[in-house]
Every structure is written in structure tokens, then in C-alpha cells.
């Protein structure tokens, strides 16, 4: 893989990732397009720029760790990992099919290069903190990144973890909230509002960075700010649009967990050309 800090190149990778997400989920006839599309820039900027990793050496002890706590957005992770060379890109459209390594939710039994199996919401931050503590014990400088959904943080365990990390000064873990405002049953503000999110994380002792989660330059700056922040953990509140990049999916709760039809696939790919 070739890493790059060039925003235009990263935007091109993001567009390709969106196309692959649409293709994968359409082929699978089920899946979660909305929350996959909203997290594209977050993951692309990590895997192709910020993350210290080597796809040829997935168990490198000093690699940065990444956990997709909102495991239902697996297609965005699979696309990005495949483009990096971890897994076969030409098999992405086997998503969710029997025998595929691309399971409905990330599963380390099928893709050993994953750092964790996720899908049951609320657990990734605890896992990430454990990895961050291990780094500290071993004197290693790797960092751990955890992407959470905004609906996901309704889970109580997230706040157990949020309380733990600042108290133990775990400054090598970065939580990223994909703040797209929609969960399965509707808009987060109507289901169980999580706002004011910045105040909540600050009150728990986190360094809070609030950005447009589709702005690659802002993401690069946020990851750099996390790396420079010592003594407390960092959370990036990435304001995003659910279904980003496909006009009829944008900000539409329907596309949290419904696959595009063939017709919708064609229209989506035209927009992502």
C-alpha cells in the first residue's frame, strides 16, 4: 500500500471506498450502508495516513491498533483493509455469504488482521483501553483508535470505559464518535439524545476535539492533536452525515440497515463516479 497525506488522493480513495460499500451491500442484499458511508473519511484518513501499520506484517508488535466498535459498519472497514492489502479486494462482494471472510460484523476468526471482533455495541472502547494499557506496560509507543457510533454510546459500558481512561491517564487511546445523528429506530435526538456530547466527554476528563468528520484535513489535524495530547485520552467528535455521498441515503434513517436495490445501486454509483 502507498500511504499519503495528500487530501485529493485521500478523497479519491474515499470515493472508491464508497463505491465498494455500495457494491458489497447490494451484492449481499443486506447490511448497513448509512453508517458505513458516514465513517469513510474517518477510516480512510486513518488507514492511508495517520495509522502506523504494515499490511505485510499484520502482527507487527508496534503497529497502531484500530477497533471498529460500531461493528455493523464492517463494509467500510473491509473496503479500506482490502485496499491496504490485508485481504483480497476482489472478494469484497462475498460479504455476508457463507464461507466469506467478510462476515456480517468483524470477526477475527475469519480475518486475523482485525484487532477485535465487534458487533455487540458498547464494547470496543474497553477493549481499546486494554490494548493501550498493554502498550504502556510494554513500553511501546503504539496508539489505539476506536470508532464508536453515536447511537452506540447509549450503552452504559461506554461510560464505564469513559470514566476509567482519564482516571488512569490512558493518553494513548483515541475514541472517535461517528456523530451521524441516526440509529436504527430513527434520529438519535428522538430515540435517546446523547447531546451535549462534548460536555459529557469533557466532564469525564477527555480531551475533546470537534470536527466535520468528512473534512480530511480536519481529521488529519485531529489525529495529530491526539498524538500530541498527553496525560488524558482524546475523543474526536466527528460530525458526519449518515449515508454520505449518496443523495437519497443522506440523513435518511431508512438506510441504517437496508441494502440498496439494483436500481439504487446504479443511481448511487452514478453519483460516486
Amino acid at each position: 500500500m502507498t500511504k499519503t497525506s495528500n487530501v485529493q488522493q485521500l478523497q479519491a480513495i474515499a470515493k472508491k471506498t464508497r463505491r465498494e460499500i455500495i457494491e458489497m451491500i447490494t451484492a449481499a442484499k443486506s447490511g448497513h450502508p448509512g453508517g458505513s458511508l458516514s465513517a469513510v473519511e474517518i477510516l480512510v484518513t486513518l488507514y492511508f495516513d495517520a495509522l502506523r501499520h504494515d499490511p505485510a506484517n499484520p502482527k507487527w508488535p508496534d503497529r497502531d491498533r484500530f477497533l471498529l466498535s460500531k461493528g455493523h459498519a464492517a463494509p467500510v472497514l473491509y473496503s479500506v483493509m482490502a485496499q491496504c492489502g490485508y485481504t483480497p479486494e476482489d472478494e469484497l462482494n462475498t460479504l455476508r455469504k457463507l464461507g466469506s471472510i467478510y462476515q456480517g460484523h468483524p470477526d477475527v476468526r475469519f480475518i486475523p488482521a482485525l484487532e477485535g471482533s465487534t458487533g455487540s455495541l458498547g464494547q470496543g472502547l474497553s477493549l481499546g483501553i486494554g490494548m493501550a494499557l498493554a502498550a504502556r506496560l510494554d513500553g511501546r509507543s503504539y496508539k489505539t483508535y476506536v470508532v464508536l457510533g453515536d447511537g452506540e454510546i447509549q450503552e452504559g459500558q461506554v461510560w464505564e470505559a469513559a470514566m476509567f481512561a482519564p482516571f488512569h491517564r490512558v493518553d494513548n487511546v483515541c475514541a472517535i464518535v461517528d456523530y451521524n445523528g441516526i440509529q436504527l429506530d430513527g434520529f438519535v435526538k428522538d430515540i435517546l439524545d446523547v447531546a451535549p456530547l462534548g460536555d459529557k466527554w469533557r466532564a469525564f476528563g477527555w480531551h475533546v476535539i470537534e470536527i466535520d468528520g468528512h473534512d480530511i484535513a480536519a481529521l488529519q489535524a485531529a489525529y495529530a492533536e491526539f498524538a500530541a495530547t498527553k496525560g488524558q485520552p482524546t475523543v474526536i467528535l466527528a460530525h458526519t452525515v449518515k449515508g454520505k455521498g449518496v443523495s437519497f441515503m443522506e440523513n435518511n434513517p431508512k438506510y441504517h440497515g437496508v441494502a440498496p436495490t439494483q436500481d439504487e445501486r446504479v443511481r448511487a454509483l452514478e453519483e460516486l463516479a
Partner: protein
Amino acid sequence: METGTKYELKPGMATREAFGKALVELGRVNQNVVALDADLSKSTFTSLFGKEFPDRFFECGIAEANMVGIGSGLASAGKIPFASSFSAFLLNKGFEQLRITAAFPNVNLKAVGTHSGISIGEDGPSQMSVEDISLACSLPGFTVLCPADEVSMMALVHAAAEHFGPVFIRAGRAKAAIIYAAGQKFEIGKSVQLMDGRDLTIIATGLLVAEAIRAADQLEAEGISARVLDMHTIKPLDRDAIAKAAAETGAIVTAEEHLVDAGLGVRVAQVVAETHPCVMECVGIQNTYAESGPPEALLEKYGLVAKNIVEAARKAISRKKA
């Protein structure tokens, strides 16, 4: 034939204390061993580890789910974490995390539940764990250990650390009679035959192993010859020893400080049914939660002492003859 007279059953320490001491021993020889607790470290005895290795001890506060998740994260990054709390809280509040972050990805986490069973006494049923064996055994890939005394606990804590994969270790609050001589070897998945006998086999685990020995002594006085197995590993079960016992003695009594609906007894019954069907009786807690009281009185009231095993044995023998 061996008889119960070789077992003095002198009072020993609680298995939770033996766990705490073994964990310190492990910590001294293996830098990768770390411990986590959820505000019960003085009761689970992980405080001993925390005192000697403060950098490798993580006090998680009263947040079991997060503790299990962090433990799994540490394990994923190469550590050998022992996460401990009362069984009732660790297994019930941490179950989803044990499932998703330990069992499912086969992570090297060791979960140690203390204060299991009803012998914790006065604190009462909200603190008593009577479902933990069932819950832990239901998780694919988990190894489930329930040592009977301090010697076996210390040995099996070391064995758990050497075994790669998720392990649940069940420990008790009450002082446990010493069954084994120092230096006795234990192997995960291999039961220990404590007494041999012709007429039936008593398969017991945890605190009930000592009661099984006492029961076998009483049965001997009645002319009934009982084999006694310490089934310290409840998963994976020692199928060979169970099948052999069924074939050679023709009757089995199980004994456990756990609900009979889903613990050692039903697991043994499955093996018996699959190998050599024979008469069986199960001693355990019957479809109820217990209450506050002195441990000895509770064990008596809820049918978990030697005389209950003796009665079950008599019943099994009579059914066998019928």
C-alpha cells in the same frame, strides 16, 4: 482398596485466598501476568498481587463489564490478565463481555469468580452465585475450573496461566478442607480419583468434594463401596473417567454447590447418556435462591452436605438393583 481414612480433611484456607497467593507466585515468574478487579480486591485476594505489582494491577471500580473488556484488550495485546470479582457479578454483569470479547475471539483472558455458591453465608442470595458454572460452560471454547481446596486451586491457577484461551475459575469464600498433599499434580480436563469403589461413583466439584469423601466413608460403614472423583475441570469434562465410572460401578451421584438444572450433574449425565447409560442422582441446589445465614447451616438446609450425598447414593443403589 483405598478408604476415606487417608483423608484427614484438616481445615485449610478458602480457595479465593489460595487463588490470590497463586496469582502473586505467577506474577513473580511471568511479567505478562496482570490482574484486574472491580472494587472487591480485598475479598478476592487480588489485593495481594496489587500490593506487590502495582503497575500490573488495574482497579476498575464497580464496573464489571468494562473490567472484562479491558482484560480482553490486555489479552489481545499479549498479556495474561486475571480479572476477578464475586462470581455473581463477574459472570452475570460481565457475561456479554465474556461472550463477545473473550469466548468469541478466543482471547487469553482468565476470569476468576470468588464467593461462588451459597457458602458465602450472611451476605445472602444477591451475592451468591448459583448459575456461574452453567453460564461459563455455555461459552464455546471456555475452560471451566472449580478447585476443591487450596492445593488444587494453586496448581490450577498456574495451569490456567499456561493454557492459552479463556478460562473461568470458580472460587469460594468459605474455608475449604485440605484434600491434597502439597505437590499433587493436576491437569486441566483430567479428574482425580480420590477413592476407588465398586458399587457407585460420586463425582463432585469444589466444596462438595470434601463432602463426597465424608459420604464415601459413611457409605463404606454401610457396606457400600464408593468411588470418588474430583471433577475440578467442568469443561472440558473428563469423559473417559465418567464413562469408566459408569461402566465399572453402574451408578453415579454428582454433587455440586450450584443449581442442579444446569451444572456439573447435567453435564455428567450427557456424557453418561452418550457413553454408558447408568443410574444417576444429582445433589445440588434445587430451583431456588438461598438466604442469609451461617455457611454450614445453609449448606445443611439446602441439601449440600455429606448426608445428602449418602441419601442420593442409597437411592441410586436401590434403583440400580431394581
